[in-house]
């Protein structure tokens, strides 16, 4: 073997275990540092962004511009939330509280943001988690079906892409309610934690997600089907089903994993719309009312939470890709 080939194969992190552990530790450290930076930046951007925009935060605390709160009440609110302090004092005080896990007090709900989040998180997680499962299942089935059936598959694939790109959550939800609640009366238009109450919200969230994921997975699977390794598998006597299950599906799943960050965005934005339409308590609906009331501490809390979720999900999808595909992380 030439020297070049040796050098090429050594940094894979597989050969030497001490080398492997060290690179894994370095990977973990870089992910943690990156995550902390993102959280700090989100917090800082919102803190200074609010101060750059004309308007009195105290006004927001008292219920927004229309509240016509008295000067005394405003002053009291300023003092209570530390808004009379110099800017840098406020910033570092809040940052310090953030480090300790204190996200402040919600203006509109008048209770600690951490408690609000803890209460709102479970219903949203149930909804989003179930929708993600349904979407993956639908995407896999769609991808396999459309890969197996040539021209029909191509039409199905592009149809799915257009649906996921052009049908907004709010319209899908409205149409579903119209069909299954108003006209057929099968399912309730208001979401509860009963199975029937979850069906429409989950479909609303899962359908656009499945459309896009299915289309991306179909593309990677179709590429795998056409590849030289699929040809050599067939030349070994592998059946078409075998090629699909043993080779293409794995490549398709890799395409799906790569969309994890996008999926989180779709689920979170979807949750805002879906929880509002189906009158379902959760993170999304509370975020909307917080935005409407300009409840900055709660908005900051949700933003920080979602940023943390994003960082975490990206790290996991990176890890998953590395496990499925040893080529990554080698260059």
């Amino acid at each position, binding site marked *: 073997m030439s020297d070049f080939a040796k*050098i090429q194969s050594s940094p894979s992190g597989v050969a030497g275990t001490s080398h492997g552990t060290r690179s894994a530790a370095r990977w973990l450290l870089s992910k943690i540092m990156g995550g902390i930076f993102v959280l700090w930046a989100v917090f800082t951007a919102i803190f200074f962004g609010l101060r750059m925009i004309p308007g009195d935060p105290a006004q927001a605390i008292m219920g927004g511009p229309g509240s016509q709160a008295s000067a005394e009440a405003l002053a009291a609110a300023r003092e209570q939330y530390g808004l009379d302090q110099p800017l840098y004092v406020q910033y570092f005080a809040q940052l310090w509280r953030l480090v300790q896990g204190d996200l402040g007090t919600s203006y509109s709900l008048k209770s600690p943001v951490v408690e609000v989040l803890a209460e709102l998180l479970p219903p949203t997680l149930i909804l989003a988690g179930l929708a993600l499962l349904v979407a993956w299942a639908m995407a896999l089935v769609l991808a396999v079906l459309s890969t197996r059936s040539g021209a029909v598959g191509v039409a199905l694939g592009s149809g799915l892409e257009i649906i996921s790109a052009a049908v907004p959550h709010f319209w899908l939800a409205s149409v579903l309610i119209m069909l299954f609640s108003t006209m057929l009366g099968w399912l309730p238009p208001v979401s509860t934690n009963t199975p029937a109450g979850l069906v429409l919200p989950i479909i609303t969230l899962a359908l656009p997600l499945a459309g896009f994921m299915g289309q991306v997975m179909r593309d990677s699977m179709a590429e795998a089907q056409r*590849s030289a390794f699929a040809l050599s598998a067939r030349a070994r006597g592998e059946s078409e089903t075998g090629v699909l299950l043993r*080779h293409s599906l794995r490549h398709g799943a890799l395409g799906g994993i790569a969309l994890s960050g996008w999926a989180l965005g779709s689920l979170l934005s979807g949750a805002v719309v879906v929880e509002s339409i189906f009158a379902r308590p959760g993170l999304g609906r509370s975020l909307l009312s917080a935005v409407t009331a300009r409840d900055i501490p709660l908005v900051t809390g949700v933003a920080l939470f979602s940023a943390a979720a994003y960082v975490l999900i990206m790290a996991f999808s990176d890890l998953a890709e590395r496990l499925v595909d040893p080529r990554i992380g080698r260059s």
Partner: protein
Amino acid sequence: MSASEPLLRVKDLDVSFGGNSVVSGISFTVNPGECLALVGESGSGKSVTARSLLGLAGPGSHVRATALDVAGKDARNFSQRSWRSLRGKEVGFILQDALTSLDPLRTVGKEIDDALRLHSSGSGSQRAARVVELLEAVGLDDPLRRASQRSGELSGGMRQRALIASAIALDPLLIIADEPTTALDATIAASVMDLLGDLRRAGSGMLLISHDLATVASVADSIAVMAAGRIVERGTREQVLNSPQHPYTRALLAAAPAGKPRFTKLSPASTHPKPPPLQPEQATVHQGEEDGVVLPVLSARGLIKNFPLSKTENFRAVHNVNFDLLPGQTLGVVGESGSGKTTTARMALGLLRTDAGTVELLGGPWSQVPESARRNRRSSLGAVYQDPLSSFDPRHSAEAILADALSLGATRNPRAHRQQISELLSLVGLAPDMAQRRPATLSGGQRQRLAIARALAPKPKVLICDEPVSALDVSVQAQVLDLLDELQQRLGLSYLFISHDLAVIRHMSDHVLVMRAGEVVESGTTESVFTAPAHEYTRSLLAAAPPSLSSI
């Protein structure tokens, strides 16, 4: 099935895709223990033929034949199930590019095991033992570990061996190998070819597909030459190589540079349009001759380049390289992948900073001065690449590209340089109506001619050619090499000519550098390096090169 019955009997095979005939009326047989080589250039239909024999011609294909007997069975009306029981068991198939022919997401062991699992009933542990046995048989070290690695973790040669292991797992009667060594370095290709030779001697019949007569010459018993979907010539190896009957076979043999002295024409003369009369300014005598001492036009001293792999490790790409390129001559640089040839070329072109050492161009400093000082001297140094298409702006037509090069970047309007553009086009043998075409619509050979025309536009003294013919078919390669020869003689150009192909280097060069792992292991006149190699590595390279066709 009796021993005398052929393994493969093909009569009047036609393959078409949606009405377009790709293979028409070809016939051949392969007997047990025999090796037939199917040789042709790209588009000749040789790969489609190979795939048709396994029922894998692909979607939309239409295959017909008066006889198609594979391993003693009439395969004309085979069901998918019958094909599957044939594939891998009776017929082993080896594809060209092992990097993509093994699933990058699965271990090598699993890939080989698939063949066993699909056709035999051995238990898991029996199969696992067989996988290791197979990997050992194809010459992989540490087969137990290799079985648990994925193809991305293996080198090119190891991958190809693993792929062969998966194809021979069930001792098939017939092995079909489609360009099994094309993507490999010469020494590795030679050892893979040896492995295939061993398999054949063990009794398997073999159908070997290749674009290169020289590669198959050492293994094949008989050769069929394909062109445009037909077999134009067929016979024993000796017949085809020594007394070729068909003009296409003769042209193919003539196009191979191996064993052809410098400046002999490789391509039929008729393909070259008559060049325009020489302009006096271009017919100047060689530069740099002062008082009888010949000064080099391009010289390098102690070139070093390292690329950081991590904070602590460096990849030594080029280490202490020296050379002198003399006026009007060609300095060939030969080496396998990773030998530092291209890095050396990039430093000579002033595209890459040297870590240490200097390059001088026409006696003046080159690598040590800033780009701003190099810029107005760049007209004396041109470059030709392996992949010309990517070196053109896709939005510009051929004439716009040449106008830009002629005007030193002042304009892309072809009208200003109408005369010079048509001169350049005819100089490199391109028809005048190519001027309006975009590079993407030109053929591979035409693109390389356009690239040469662009390089010549500023009237350079030195051309650096980095694998200029590696991506081309043999006959097109011959034309481009002839063109480079002709231009050198007419214009007095000096070439730094980089190639992995020993035969091309020998045909083109006056002096040769042999590089390995970033170092020059041997240098000297072409004659001395090729006839009396001093370094062991040069000798192994020469031994690995396919034999010159005339010596068979």
